[in-house]
């Protein structure tokens, strides 16, 4: 990986998710809602086996 590649990757970890959720972007909104719903229960984030359809 070149240095140029490293510089091109933005840091997105500090984004304000509420602001993103208000955007007119149906797919992003759905993903963020799902992340919010899982925030209090991390169990599903430990269901990583991927040779079955997502549960």
């Amino acid at each position, binding site marked *: *990986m070149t*240095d140029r*590649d*490293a*510089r*091109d*990757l*933005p*840091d*997105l*970890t*500090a*984004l*304000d*998710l509420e*602001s*993103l959720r*208000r*955007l007119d*972007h*149906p*797919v*992003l*909104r*759905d*993903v963020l809602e*799902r*992340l919010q719903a899982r925030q209090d*229960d*991390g*169990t*599903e*984030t*430990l*269901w*990583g*086996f*991927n*040779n*079955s*359809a*997502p*549960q």
Partner: protein
Amino acid sequence: MTRAGPGAEAGAGAGAEASGTGADAADGVPARVPFRQFVVKTHARCNLACRYCYLYSGPDRGWRARPPTASAAVREQTARRIGEHAARHRLRRLSLVLHGGEPLLHGAGPLVAYTEAVRRAVPAGSTVHATVQTNGTLLTDESAALLSEHRITVGLSIDGGLPHHNRLRVDHAGRPSHAAVVRAARLLADRHRTAYAGLLVVVDPTLDPAEVHRSLLELDPPALDLLLPHGNWTTPPPGARVADGSGATPYGDWLCAVFDLWWRAPRHRTRIRLFEQCLALLLGRPAAGESLGTAPFTAVVVETDGTLEQVDSLKSAYDGAAATGLDVFRHTFDEALDHPGIAARQAGAAALAAECRACPVVRVCGGGNYAHRYRAETGFVNPSVYCADLMRLIRHVAAALAAEAAAAGPAAPRTTGGGPR
């Protein structure tokens, strides 16, 4: 040739460097994370003979010596062990994946029996989420109804909605399976919607991504996952450009094309797990999955004879790669957590190759699927054979998300502006 097994190198590394997975342990050894996904083989044979099958056409031969079905004794003992594990670790939710071979070869009844045995065995307050992963060719309205009645969801394996997308998914006589699987998908979508888990798709970069994506949406899945075909540095996947120095990323390009279609859709049509994982990890949120990230892997397999194994994907590396030497009659699931191969997959970045640990996208990539890192001379402590393809996808998704964030104004991201860590 000496073959380095799974976890043999990383097990030592994981002990030496606490990775922060699970709770901290006083002695500096990362605490084990309990199993939460129990993949139970209900049938060890398959009515299809898919030409890329890593299980029956790959290097592993273990299935030949195993009984075709899980006996009542194996089911009951497995259920007892799951209940014991759930009680010991106070698991509120766990996943039961009914797998094979082809689980429906003996109908839905045995699957229901297995699920109910597990539900009886777990403590009160522990919920069992059951799903069956099937090729769909044997799914009937009656079996779908029975599975649905017992809250068992159904996942279908299909590589696209059109016949030529599934040219590799044939039976033992070479006959196509496509029509039967599409029938199963429409049955679930139209009559058993709550039991429809989704579709599992193996990526073929020679196929038109837009056509594959569009044809899959016509099967109305609530979710789908896109899997890279199993391969590694010693046995590269089909079409992978790993050693020619071209920098080509056929799989990455294909995934980016599908991502764009999914991302830019005027309305949300289906979940695509790989893309959701990537987005979550880019946002600094936890995400489960074997394809990306460094979350501890918490799945274990119980074969039809009660043998405990690591997940099947490892069998694409070499014969016996998934073996642990343990079984449900003589061992607990906690003992399986001590196996070096399983521990390595809970060690996070500590188990990765040095060049992966130094890579700025490691937090998202996580080294990719464990099985794809294998090289006969050095084991599993290598980058993924799909490293360049994963990099292509991750950067593409990051750019798309950053563009949306820019539109949000104050939510605009900071740029790292630095080199590798």
